[in-house]
């Protein structure tokens, strides 16, 4: 067989060419069925009763009036849900309905199931809950200062959920020896995903009495596990179907209380039960970007080369664990991947507060420290009189090397990314030379292509793909991967088509269905293209071998001489001798029986073996550089982004239309975070009230960029194939968001000389900076203090270049680094 050029540059027959996505037609005709589009016979509707208090003890729940209300079939309370659950094995701290305590405004306490949605809503209004308010904990500072009452009775004591302290080499010594040490405080405000589709779920019993849940989820496999746990049912009696998500961005990665509630309700009523959340309720589900306060200290040589970095992060985790144990570590784990950092200390603290829980949002934990480092590098460049682009170019992390914290880097196209955006924006001619009020800013980043470890500890594949080929010539691919708009269906179809020499539109897909499809861990951490893609290649290659064997026999040539292209199988040396693809399937089915193959993928083992090393490893890393051009109106402080140049090292482009869409969507979301998006809360003076309410739980008030705010974006793809990627491909869905916010901040500085060390960069902040500048102070707006945190002793790991082997000093040999994968620091991961 002719090689398929895996890892080669340039387009294939399908991959690399601009193409309508395979699910494009369904989306433009309104035929894509989202969860709320499902209507089943005899379906009931569910509404949740949510807490108006941020923190309170539940004294009594009176459901009598609701139960007697018209149309009501069922009322559930916390009593019905004794078993806790949670996405991470180390933080099983949620109940589908609160049992004794509410922990944030919007925490659900009861559910009503009725014949119509309106009846459910009206009856829900009749439920009387008696609360006894508890002290409200509104911020990480308050959490640190208020150990009692505890929001949860697990964690690191008081209201601290997670603490981590890693030292990769002697950072203090390196900082003492540095020519200059730069120390800055930064704050990155929380924001939420705003998928346009509000979460919805439908549960029903199938004709055989098994439970089926359709849900807008990115992680059907994890929902499947948590349903089995929370409902105390065998998993094989449950089927979870991920409906296409109307946007997700990380916000549909947790198992949610409303999913468990409707599942229980379907079991108890024997009828289908639907819930569709209101927009306000989606704000309470949250799991969005953690607000993070950061202290970053960097020591450099006279030419600006980093000798050591010392990072502290303080996370406002909200009311539950969610992915937080991983999020906390992600605020530091990838800091060594972009530039070479010889010594690195990282300390993270995640606190519980009485707000909707934070979790993974596009870039998961990484945009915050990227913002800090990229803005600080800009300051270092200014202080040393260097071009910020040169400062970065001189210290890009070396390809195919280990970082100080033992992450294994693969291909790195960052140099080309920087060069392209610098050229495109005429950076060297224009930066620092534009008229007052206009500026250019540069920033870079890197991101993972799939978390190297699963959420729960196991050694099984992370992705599986099955192929069925039949005599019609049809190819069906079965995969647990979940289409959330990012194009996972198209990636799978394109890869299978490329290998088998057919068209992407020839491949039918069955995805995200725990009954029908092999497990894929979910659409998170930018893992699907690489992991499901590699599994698809393996399955398709196996099918190709079967077809080639049968076709070669018929043609009387050796299988190695066969090519698969243009829906044909033919002799490369005599292309007229061949057959249609369907005929090759018929021959193979005749010779070998029913044709089905599987492929699976598990990322390579990490070199890091210390406790807590589960977060950060990946099979490959993508790289991005961006230049932002901004106008700042000195009178109003208004920042307008005029244009963005962005270079992304994608390894290999699979479908340029979709890849560009991921970059532009990331730029868009990054601009929202940089300039306006914030999930913030209103706190009344504690002596007057314990209230802590979301300031803006509506799409009108939660500002996000509209079509009028979107600037022109010039995208460059750098194709630096990575040996671990399918056809060399790396991720593109999250990485391009990361450099946007710091590039905007750096552009604002170039425009008006004001450092805004926090996002969002509001007009108010810019004006404050301009006033300070006018008064002769250093023009800086941003956090002024980092509260005292009682850090644990450091876990010390010598970097590779100081003789380290990936284990911590004093660590016993064993599997330490594996524990609680996907990010947890715990060692008691498995719970199956």
């Amino acid at each position, binding site marked *: 067989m002719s090689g398929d050029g895996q890892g080669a540059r340039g387009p294939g*027959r399908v991959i690399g*060419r601009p*193409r*309508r*996505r395979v699910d*494009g*037609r*369904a*989306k*433009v*005709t*309104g*035929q*894509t069925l*989202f969860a*709320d*589009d499902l*209507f089943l016979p005899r379906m009931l509707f569910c509404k949740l009763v949510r807490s108006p208090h941020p923190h309170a003890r539940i004294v009594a729940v009176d459901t009598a009036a609701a139960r007697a209300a018209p149309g009501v079939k069922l009322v559930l309370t916390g009593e019905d849900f004794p078993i806790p659950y949670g996405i991470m094995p180390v933080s099983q701290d949620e109940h589908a309905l609160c049992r004794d305590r509410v922990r944030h405004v919007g925490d659900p306490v009861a559910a009503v199931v009725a014949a*119509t949605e*309106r009846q459910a809503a009206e009856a829900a209004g009749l439920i009387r809950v008696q609360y006894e308010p508890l002290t409200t904990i509104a911020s990480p500072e308050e959490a640190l200062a208020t150990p009692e009452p505890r929001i949860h009775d697990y964690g690191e004591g008081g209201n601290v959920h997670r603490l981590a302290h890693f030292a990769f080499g002697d950072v203090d010594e390196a900082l003492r020896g540095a020519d200059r040490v730069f120390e800055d405080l930064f704050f990155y405000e929380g924001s939420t*995903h705003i*998928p*346009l*589709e*509000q979460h919805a779920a439908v549960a029903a019993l199938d004709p055989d009495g098994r439970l089926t849940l359709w849900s807008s989820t990115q992680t059907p496999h994890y929902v499947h596990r948590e349903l089995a746990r929370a409902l105390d049912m065998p998993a094989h009696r449950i089927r979870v179907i991920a409906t*296409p*998500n*109307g*946007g*997700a*961005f990380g916000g549909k990665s947790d198992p949610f209380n409303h999913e468990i509630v409707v599942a229980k309700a379907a079991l108890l009523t024997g009828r289908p039960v639907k819930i569709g959340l*209101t*927009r306000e309720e989606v704000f309470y589900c949250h799991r969005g970007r953690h607000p993070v306060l950061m202290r970053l200290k960097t020591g450099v040589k006279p030419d600006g080369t980093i000798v050591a970095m010392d990072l502290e992060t303080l996370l406002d985790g909200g009311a539950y664990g969610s992915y937080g144990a991983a999020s906390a570590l992600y605020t530091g784990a990838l800091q060594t991947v972009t530039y070479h950092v010889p010594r690195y200390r990282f300390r993270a603290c995640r606190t519980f507060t009485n707000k909707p829980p934070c979790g993974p949002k596009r870039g998961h934990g990484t945009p915050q420290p990227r913002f800090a480092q990229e803005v600080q590098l800009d300051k270092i460049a200014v202080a040393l009189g260097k071009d910020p682009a040169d400062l970065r170019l001189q210290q890009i992390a070396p390809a195919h090397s280990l970082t100080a914290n033992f992450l294994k880097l693969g291909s790195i196209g960052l140099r080309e990314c920087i060069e392209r955006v610098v050229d495109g924006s005429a950076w060297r001619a224009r930066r620092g030379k534009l008229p007052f009020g206009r500026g250019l800013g540069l920033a870079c980043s890197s991101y993972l292509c799939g978390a190297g470890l699963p959420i729960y500890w196991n050694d099984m594949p992370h992705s599986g793909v099955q192929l069925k080929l039949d005599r019609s010539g049809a190819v069906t691919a079965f995969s647990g991967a979940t289409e959330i*708009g*990012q*194009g996972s269906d198209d990636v799978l179809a394109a890869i299978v088509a490329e290998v088998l020499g057919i068209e992407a539109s020839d491949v039918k897909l069955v995805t995200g269905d725990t009954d029908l499809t092999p497990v894929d861990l979910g659409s998170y951490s930018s893992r699907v293209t690489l992991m499901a893609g590699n599994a698809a290649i393996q399955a398709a290659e196996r099918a190709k071998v079967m077809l080639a064997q049968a076709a070669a026999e018929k043609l009387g040539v050796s299988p190695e001489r066969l090519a698969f292209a*243009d*829906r044909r199988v033919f002799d490369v040396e005599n292309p007229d001798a*061949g057959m*249609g*693809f*369907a*005929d090759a399937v018929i021959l193979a089915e005749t010779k070998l029986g029913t044709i089905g193959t599987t492929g699976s993928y598990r990322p390579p083992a990490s070199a890091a073996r210390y406790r807590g090393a589960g977060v950060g490893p990946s099979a490959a890393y993508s790289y991005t550089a961006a230049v932002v051009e901004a106008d700042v109106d000195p009178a109003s402080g208004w920042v307008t982004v005029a244009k963005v140049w962005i270079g992304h090292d994608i390894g290999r482009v699979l479908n340029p*239309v*979709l890849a560009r*869409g991921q970059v*532009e*969507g990331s*730029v*868009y*979301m990054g601009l929202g975070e940089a300039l306006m998006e914030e999930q913030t809360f209103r706190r009344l003076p504690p002596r007057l009230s314990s209230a802590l309410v979301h300031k803006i739980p*509506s*799409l*009108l008030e939660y500002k*996000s960029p*509209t*079509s*009028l705010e*979107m600037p*022109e974006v010039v995208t460059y793809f750098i194709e630096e194939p990575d040996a671990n990627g399918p056809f060399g491909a790396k991720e593109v869905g999250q990485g391009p968001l990361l450099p946007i916010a710091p590039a905007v901040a750096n552009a604002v500085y170039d425009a008006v000389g004001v450092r805004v060390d926090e996002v969002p960069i509001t007009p108010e902040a810019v004006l404050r900076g301009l006033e300070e500048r006018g008064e002769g102070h250093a023009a800086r707006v941003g956090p002024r203090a980092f509260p005292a945190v009682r850090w644990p002793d450091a876990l010390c790991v010598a970097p590779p270049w100081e003789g380290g082997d990936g284990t911590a000093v004093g660590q016993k040999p064993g599997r330490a680094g594996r524990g609680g994968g996907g990010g947890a620091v715990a060692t008691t991961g498995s719970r199956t």
Partner: protein
Amino acid sequence: MRPAHNRLTVNGELREVLFDATKTLLEVLREDLRLTGTKHGCELGECGTCAVLMEGRPVLSCLVLGVECDGADVTTVEGLAEGPALHPLQEAFADRGAAQCGYCTPGILLTAKALLDRNPHPTRGEIAEALSGNLCRCTGYLQIFEAVEEAARTERTDPPTQGRTYRPADAQARPRAGDAR
């Protein structure tokens, strides 16, 4: 439930519908007529996701009561294609990556159709202005603008009276499965 009874034209067909009088047009379309192509993102008039055409003009169906629609002429995404032939906007949106998750797409398609119907050759600025009430969280809007522009070009050269003449530029046209030699 206080029932209401309406007759309205939906996608060119006369429909009679009995519904809860408190329902919005959005709910009547989705729940009573089962035209689930129309989506919702807020049901408060804030996101544009639920846009449909009434008498050819975009309205937010979550802000219109069903009882207001007696005798109305409503177009939803299901009515955009002519038979199996997609509307040029649909073709362009599918080809140009203007639909990622596809959830904002029906509302944007109809808003764009209303724009092209009254202004067949809009500038980029006019497109952005017309769509400024339709949020999209996936695309960053640029591929949506390009798709509208492409549809506008298509309509200019291929009047709709000639039926579906638009074809995506497809450099890799290949023989169908049965064509293999």
